[in-house]
């Protein structure tokens, strides 16, 4: 793992200096602020739509803090994960394509350190963005709708974060294997869709990482949640993806 610290520092600086800082953190923060606001305004907006034929009525439930958190978690599970898959299609391969990896890897920086520093820097970005976005969501929800089940929301976002890290690890592997970022992003959408399908079946949802999102929703709603096995398999799948990515990248010619 020679050069890990130096390369991790470069990755974190790069995140702050380039477009990367705008993508995931902006999406998460946007979801954190827009979810309570939309939940709060929705009844009024529907009421003011008007123009309904006589006899038709639309009944909108009272906006609650729980509904705002559910909306936020939904955005994280769809919009943000989709953005993650697209943004990280070239997490490893883009440096190889641009030629910057050749200069770095001709120095005593190990291939494993190269891959793992990229992964860890983005884990930190996701974690910080999730903390900031969730804090913003809870604060705005508290101002508009009351605090509600904030602790459950935090626990649900923690489970989502593990799910996001599983997807990130899968993208690191795909980007180490496939030279084209678009191809890796396409394959990543396939992984995302496969997890969504697996989550629909109770048997697979209870034991695979695909069950992390249903578990997060259950935690938020105060329902019995089966999160232990998905959490364990999620960590195992992430570790396996990283090991495979390092193995493959170590054999790749730059």
């Amino acid at each position: 793992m020679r050069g890990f610290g130096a390369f991790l520092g470069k990755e974190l600086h790069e995140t702050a200096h380039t477009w990367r800082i705008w993508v995931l953190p902006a999406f998460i923060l946007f979801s954190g602020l827009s979810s309570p606001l939309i939940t709060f305004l929705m009844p009024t907006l529907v009421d003011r739509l008007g123009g309904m034929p006589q006899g038709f009525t639309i009944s909108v439930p009272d906006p609650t803090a729980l509904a705002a958190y559910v909306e936020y978690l939904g955005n994280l599970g769809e919009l943000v994960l989709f953005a993650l898959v697209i943004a990280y299609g070239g997490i490893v391969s883009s440096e190889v394509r641009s030629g910057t990896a050749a200069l770095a890897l001709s120095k005593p920086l190990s291939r494993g350190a190269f891959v793992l520093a990229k992964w860890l820097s983005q884990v930190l970005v996701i974690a910080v963005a999730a903390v900031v976005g969730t804090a913003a969501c809870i604060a705005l929800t508290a101002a508009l709708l009351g605090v509600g089940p904030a602790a459950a929301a935090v626990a649900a976002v923690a489970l989502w974060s593990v799910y996001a890290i599983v997807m990130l690890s899968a993208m690191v592997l795909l980007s180490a294997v496939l030279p084209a970022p678009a191809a890796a992003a396409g394959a990543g959408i396939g992984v995302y869709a496969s997890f969504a399908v697996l989550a629909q079946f109770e048997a697979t949802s209870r034991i695979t990482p695909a069950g992390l999102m249903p578990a997060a929703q259950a935690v938020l709603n105060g329902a019995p949640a089966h999160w232990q096995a998905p959490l364990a398999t999620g960590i195992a799948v992430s570790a396996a993806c990283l090991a495979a990515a390092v193995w493959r990248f170590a054999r790749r010619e730059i």
Partner: protein
Amino acid sequence: MRLIAASVSIGSPLIVALLAVLALVELGLLAWALLDLAKRPADRVAGGSRLLWLLLCLFVQLIGPLIYLAVGRLPAAPRALPRPQAPGGEGHVARAAAALYDAAASRARGAAGDAPPGPEADAERLGPAVELVGVRKVFRTTAALDGLSLSVPEGSVFGFLGPNGAGKTTTLRILAGLARPSSGAARVLGRDVSGAGGDVRALIGYLPDVPAFYKWMTAPQYLRFAGSLFGLRGDVLEARVAALLDLAGLAGVGTRIGGFSRGMKQRLGVAQALVNAPRLLLLDEPTSALDPIGRREVLDMVAALRGRTTVFFSTHILADVERVCDTVAIIDHGRVAAHAPIDELRRRRGGLSRLAVEVDEPPLLVAALEGAAWLRAVEVAEDGGLRLATDDLEAAQRELPALVAHLGLALRRLESDELSLEDVFVDLVEGAPR
């Protein structure tokens, strides 16, 4: 069912303030993006189309201006930076490179308690810096290297010549640990390149043919990053960075690398390759993007490193090789066509010395030269001069002026016209079996 159950109503000051902030942010970003777009020339807009960015900003609320501001603006081309006046005048770059090595060597001696190098270190130093044995590299069905074997003594300046596609860059990538041979052995300073990993890479400096840098960094940031990958820290790193910036003529340049010209990038590439004061410096076409002054400085620097480190210098510019290299290998189709000190290569291929002669009546001299014992061939050049080939240069130089005087001719030119490396190169490459 009540429409609003919360204590905050749609018209409350909090909501109005929130909506106002959102609207202000959106309008501010839109105004910023549109003003920037109006001022910016089309060649500094990503994709080159201002209309597309305008439509994106106007019709994709909030996100459009954000995307434009994040990735749509290209950096300005750098001002034509005057080449910094070297404090030491001519030869400054060479002296700076030599000083860098001397300082690194002194620091290494200090770290080792000024202990003299032991026999083991001597033995290691006496071995070849680069050793390639039967290296093959196959890409699908094409052999880029086809049994390449050569040995480069430590401390030498080695020229690695070949036409485009001969396998020069592939060889350097293997030595830098970026590619692996399909078969054969590649050793650097006695260690197998693919097996030793970081231990070997810690001893080398590498400049690829087209160096690519992180565009968002400045030159000092990149050199600090490169140095930190070698474990350099603190004052040592800062001193090294300052020396290399000076050497590269980039001291005081605060522009991001994304705005550098190709020549500036090439000079930065040379600097980063020296950051660890490497025992083997691999340079792939180091002068290809440089202006004449930059080229001379790099060649002077390479020459100054002779004896301090081993320089493995790939190029197709024959004049560069003739100027600085001790030994040369010419490769073609992935094989070594010739490998010898330059003078020996000239002798081996030529065998004969050449003389360029100009007189006022060339046909008279040609007729008089018939039967001269030292003459092997004579031809009339396009400029009317004569080109003589001889196996006894001394006799030719002694007898030719006497013969010209005897004929009553005016001798306008008599020069030794040595076989150039270009002659050898063309001869070898064009004569190689396909």
